[in-house]
């Protein structure tokens, strides 16, 4: 027990130190982060399958990240049940560099901003049919960050126009 003090010459000082520690721990604990659990198996699997990862986006059963391997960055879709990447045919083009990604909550759609041939494009990928389509931006602007809702029918996109950042809401069919 913390309250037990030692019956020797240093007992009083030791007890005081212990109570100070408890008080400090309580104070720090009160304003520090809560107990969170890293998902060790999943994190190990993520580390094994790429050299580096950034820009995570979570769906209920899926994680997508921009993953580097062998010096090339590509969009990787990971099944959260086992931590393994799954094929996404047609998503990564050899001539395109992904900038920002967002998964719909069901993992079926993925919105992305990519740079290709000197242009920045807003794209939508549908996993079940492996189709990647370009979305028009009107009035024209340069897209930067994207966010899709649960069923992938509403897209929020950060766009630069006339030297300013703005956010458009796009309803998708």
């Amino acid at each position, binding site marked *: 027990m913390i309250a037990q003090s030692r019956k020797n010459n240093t007992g009083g000082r030791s007890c005081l130190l212990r109570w100070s520690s408890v008080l400090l721990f309580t104070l720090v604990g009160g304003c520090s*982060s809560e*107990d969170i659990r890293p998902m060790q198996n999943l994190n190990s699997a993520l580390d094994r399958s790429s050299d580096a990862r950034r820009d*995570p986006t979570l769906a209920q059963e899926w994680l997508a990240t921009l993953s580097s391997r062998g010096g090339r960055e590509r969009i990787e879709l990971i099944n959260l049940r086992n931590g393994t990447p799954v094929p996404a045919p*047609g998503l990564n083009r050899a001539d395109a560099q992904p900038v920002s990604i967002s998964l719909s909550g069901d993992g079926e759609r993925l919105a992305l901003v990519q740079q290709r041939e000197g242009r920045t494009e807003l794209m939508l990928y549908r996993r079940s049919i492996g189709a990647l389509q370009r979305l028009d931006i009107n009035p024209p602007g340069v897209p930067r960050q994207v*966010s899709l*809702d649960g069923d992938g029918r509403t897209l929020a996109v950060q766009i630069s126009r006339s030297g*300013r950042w703005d*956010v458009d809401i796009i309803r998708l069919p």
Partner: protein
Amino acid sequence: MRRLPPIVRVAENSLIAAAVSLLMLGCSPNARRAPGAAVDRQQQDPAISGNGNLLAVIVEQRGRPTVELRDLRSGQRLPLRHLNRQQPHSSPSLSWNGRYLAVITQRGNRRMALVEDRVTGRAHPLRPPGNRDPVRVSLAPDGQRMAIQVADRGRWRVEMLDLSSMLEPDRPGGLRVTTPQEGT
């Protein structure tokens, strides 16, 4: 379920993809400026809730990048209890009904993730394992997991955190806890 030779299946998928592409090109998406923002105000880093009703964006408040939550149907700004300080804010993320708003904040010289529970009014500060500064976060639609991007030995890593012991699920259908049978 009929079994088709692989070549037929590939052709079938290609046809569907082509048809969908034509449909998408045929009708350009219906777009509008995010409601509720003054014309001269910049908005960045949007995050939309799973149900598509709420939008979190980063705006400048007295020169400080600050997260703002809006109802997309009315354009009305919604109050946040804990996110009027600890700027600059970045990388907001919302759960399904927008019960949870996760965002990266700053305390002293350290960056840390914070989840505000809009139902209980509680704030849950989160620091990635290894005491690293988070760069981007993404909250799972039900709020039970979080992906955090951190720098580790000179490279970007993504860490998955289990928040199920800390946050109730925020699932489709309203602000309630569903039983496992109801699921998503």
